[in-house]
């Protein structure tokens, strides 16, 4: 096998290019990670207590709100969390955000939203209709209402944003 001869001049030029590229990567990649990193981190939420289990009626969802302290960067911001909590037996709970998944308006509970569908949630902004489980019925809604994680501890209902 015969190796192609690389002139000294070209070899040096290539070395300079390689070292320069290495230096650029050494500086550029950490800089990109630094800028992009925090924007893609999901922090999730803390468990938020909503009240004693017996306070939630069985017949229809109850709108609960709580103030949540959320750390954004180095600042702790107070945010309002409002959720519909429904339960059929007082043991298993479903918590849904009251923010419409279309553009974020607040939905309200309506006893009879539709003759066929029965009770559900209605968004006044663009006539979005969800059924009682938060599923899509009508309007420009892209996805069902967002669910929150729930747990019961010592008779208290806790929810957590996913």
């Amino acid at each position, binding site marked *: 096998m015969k190796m192609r001869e690389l002139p000294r001049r070209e070899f040096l030029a290539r070395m300079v290019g390689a070292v320069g590229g290495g230096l650029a990567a050494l500086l550029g990649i*950490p800089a990109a*990670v*630094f800028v992009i*990193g*925090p924007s893609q981190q999901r922090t999730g939420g803390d468990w938020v207590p909503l009240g004693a289990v017996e306070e939630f009626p069985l017949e229809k969802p109850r709108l609960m709100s709580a103030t949540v302290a959320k750390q954004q*960067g180095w*600042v702790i911001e107070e945010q309002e969390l409002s959720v519909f909590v429904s339960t059929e037996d007082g043991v298993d709970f479903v918590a849904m955000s009251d923010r419409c998944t279309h553009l974020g308006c607040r939905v309200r509970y309506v006893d009879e939203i539709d003759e066929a569908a029965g009770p559900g949630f209605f968004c006044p902004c663009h006539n979005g209709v969800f059924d009682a489980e938060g599923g899509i019925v009508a309007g420009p809604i892209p996805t069902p209402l967002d669910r929150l994680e729930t747990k019961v501890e010592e008779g208290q209902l806790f929810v957590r944003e996913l």
Partner: protein
Amino acid sequence: MGTRVGDWIDQRSGWRESWNRIFLARIPNISWGHTLGAATLMAVVILLITGLVLTVYYVSSPSDAHQSVQYITNVVPLGWLIRGLHHWAASALVILSVAHLVRVVIHGAYKYPREFTWFSGIALLLLVFAFGLTGSLLPWDQRAYWATEVRIEVFATVPFIGDWLARFLQGGEQLSSLTLSRFYAAHVWLFPLLLFGLVAAHLRLVVRHGVSATPKEEPRRRGDSRRREEALKREEALKREEASLL
């Protein structure tokens, strides 16, 4: 770059001419000392890039400055690295600039025709110190605060204008949030703009004049050297006589 792509772009931009003039210029016999300018430039590049991205998280208000720096150092991925690079490259820049200056002095490279290169270099050195003064306040911790306090006291001792100067630097009667925000403005807006201009001029001049050769003893030419030396001596003696006559 592939030759064909290179040609295509060259026909439209003429990049090759500049490239060749900068990177393929003939240079005299040089020493490691000649690389100090490029090392200084590299420190500047590191500082520019790390400084640029640090501003993404840094906030120049007294209530946020310290916490945002802590956030950068402890929470942001590789934040410790970016901040550390900015910190140490700043120290390296001061050392390299001075070393570069010493090399130029020793080689006498500040002389004709490179006076403007020298003057722009001196302006750059002062600018580096100004960057250091303003940048070291930004972390807004005890050390930053008191070190700046002392430096401003030093400025206050300047005859006649000291008081005025200290107030100008502080943005008021004492070191405060006004000082922090004006130091930040100078550090990230005014000084970098000056830096771009001066570095561009400095490099343009280096390309124009080429690299200065390492000075060495002139080789004596055989044959005419003695006769020439005698002639020079005679001329010098004559000049001295003329001067005494006057």
